[in-house]
């Protein structure tokens, strides 16, 4: 699979996801500068974490208007895979590729922590190596991950089964305490109607190697390439 990692001015997780794609799951990867109009033939486009354009105005709002996003939208419309992690998720929301918006975290603090998530969809190209209902642990690091939308649009999102991960307790139950940033309906990740665009606040690229003490994020990348790469698996 040919992968492209978009680099906006202010992206800071671009090298992490490049490393996982290239060295951990062995794919061909290139960086795609935000100013270019082409995806250089990438099958999978990743919008990485960071602070694109310094999060000026609203997180993701400037990046959503950069030249490469027209190509990303076209790619998504053609059924191509798009993965937005953290700030990349915010860019997907601002560009209209996914519905909703991000508010400041409920307690107004930047949260850097491991959280438990329940896998709601295990039938997507991004999640097919997880099991539905499985509880996984991934790190988050954000100040604006408090997902919001109109109640009726949240209902539509739920009815269309577009919620992919929810913040839960270790036992897999949603509750206000486990919903660390105050997101509507404990939403941590959503997909589009066709299931080819995924936006998630947690960072799977930060826990994709045994040496880091957690491989729960690796499963997402294994799902994408359709192979298991863990020696221990």
């Amino acid at each position, binding site marked *: 699979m040919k992968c492209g990692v978009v680099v906006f001015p202010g992206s800071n997780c671009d090298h992490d996801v490049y490393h996982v794609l290239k060295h951990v799951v062995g794919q061909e990867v290139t960086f795609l500068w935000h100013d270019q109009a082409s995806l250089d033939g990438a099958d999978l486009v990743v919008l990485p974490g960071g602070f694109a354009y310094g999060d000026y105005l*609203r997180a993701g*709002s400037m990046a959503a208007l950069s030249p490469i996003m027209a190509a990303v939208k076209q790619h998504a419309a053609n059924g191509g895979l798009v993965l937005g992690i953290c700030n990349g998720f915010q860019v997907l929301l601002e560009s209209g590729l996914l*519905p909703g918006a991000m*508010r400041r975290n409920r307690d*107004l603090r930047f949260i850097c922590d491991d959280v438990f998530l329940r896998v709601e969809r295990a039938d997507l190209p991004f999640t097919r190596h997880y099991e539905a209902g499985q509880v996984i642990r991934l790190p988050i690091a954000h100040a604006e991950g408090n997902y919001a939308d109109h109640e009726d649009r949240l209902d539509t999102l739920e009815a269309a089964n577009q919620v992919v991960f929810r913040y839960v307790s270790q036992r897999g139950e949603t509750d206000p305490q486990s919903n660390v940033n105050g997101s509507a309906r404990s939403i941590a990740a959503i997909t589009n109607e066709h299931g080819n665009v995924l936006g998630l606040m947690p960072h799977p690229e930060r826990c994709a190697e045994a040496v880091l003490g957690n491989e729960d994020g690796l499963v997402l990348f294994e799902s994408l390439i359709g192979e298991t790469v863990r020696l221990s698996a």
Partner: protein
Amino acid sequence: MSKKNQPIFDACVAVMPRGAVLDPQGKAIENSLARLGYEGVSDVRAGKVFRLTVQAKDLETARAGVEEMAEQLLANPVMEDWTIEVEPAEDDSAGGSGADDS
């Protein structure tokens, strides 16, 4: 089409979170005001104000342009509302009065 000789307008766009539930910052500020001893303060909301200088053929055109800018970029329509004020610039040395006489 050159805007060189068109009148200049001052525009002000105020963007506000739609309702208290969408504004954790406003809630925190409200709590801090209470801590300072201010009683009877409610529904505090934190928004953004943008000031723009716009050149357009008349007031209506200027307002329509700013309305588009607000919807496309300055505000996020999912969770924010906005109000717009447009008036002829006080020091408009480039063109006419700016009055909408079309």
